């Protein structure tokens, strides 16, 4: 089992092809993720603080599941920024799904800065398990 990590503040920026630019005037970070598997599904948990439910786009193209969460920068009229330790930016991350997942029944839930994706496994009937015979 993967080890539990301590709380971290650093954000990792998403990579972009050389020469290309993002269209939005802000940085794009890779959200931290926990991925676990239970008997009948796989769950992806992503940290996307600051994003709203309606600003999260989840798309599946072929085997690639992409999560894009927009975050609108804080704006406080009459206030000036004095000190900044973290930067507000969008989040983007893609995962290649294993074949055993049912692509039609992916569900997502958002709560307090956490996006959870539930990816049910395909029916057992569809997956053929091959036993290894003893020599």
């Amino acid at each position, binding site marked *: 089992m993967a080890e539990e990590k301590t709380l971290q503040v650093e954000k990792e920026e998403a990579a972009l092809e050389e020469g290309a630019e993002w269209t939005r005037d802000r940085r794009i970070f890779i959200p931290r993720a926990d991925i676990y598997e239970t008997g009948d599904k796989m769950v992806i948990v992503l940290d996307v603080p600051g994003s709203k439910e309606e600003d999260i786009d989840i798309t599946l193209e072929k085997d690639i599941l992409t999560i894009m969460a927009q975050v609108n920068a804080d704006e406080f009229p009459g206030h000036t920024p004095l000190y900044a330790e973290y930067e507000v930016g969008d989040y983007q991350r893609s995962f290649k799904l294993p074949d055993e997942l049912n692509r039609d029944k992916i569900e997502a839930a958002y709560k*307090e800065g956490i996006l959870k994706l539930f990816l049910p496994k395909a029916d057992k009937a569809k997956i053929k398990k091959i036993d290894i015979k003893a020599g």
Partner: protein
Amino acid sequence: MIYRRLRTPSMWRDMDRMQREMNRVFESYSPRGLRSAPAYPAMNVWGSEEGLLVTAELPGVSSKDIELSVVNETLTVSGERVPEELVEEARYHRRECGCGKFTRSIQLPFAVDASKVEASFKNGVLHVSLPRKAEDKPRKIKVKVG
């Protein structure tokens, strides 16, 4: 902690990256106890004549687990990100989100009216508004014409 402007030009971004790389190199040679971890949570501070606004990203922390206190000119934020309870047969593929307890105090530049401090927690972001004490507010002084 790195002071950084909100919108950093690309040169600074590269410098930051270099600094991080260097830190990583040095840290990998130092004993475990000496490695410096940046304080959690990271905070942004906004100011106006009326007071301060402090924001912090706390994904996965429930609002009931956040504790705030203001004593004189010190703001303390503490809380805990509780690890998710999984069913027994669950197996992690990857674990990047940290969890555990945290406490952080910051020194404020002026006395705060503790009775008027307000905090909200939305979408995993904490907002604390800290109004300046009335008697501590800057007074405008008129220059008399001699």
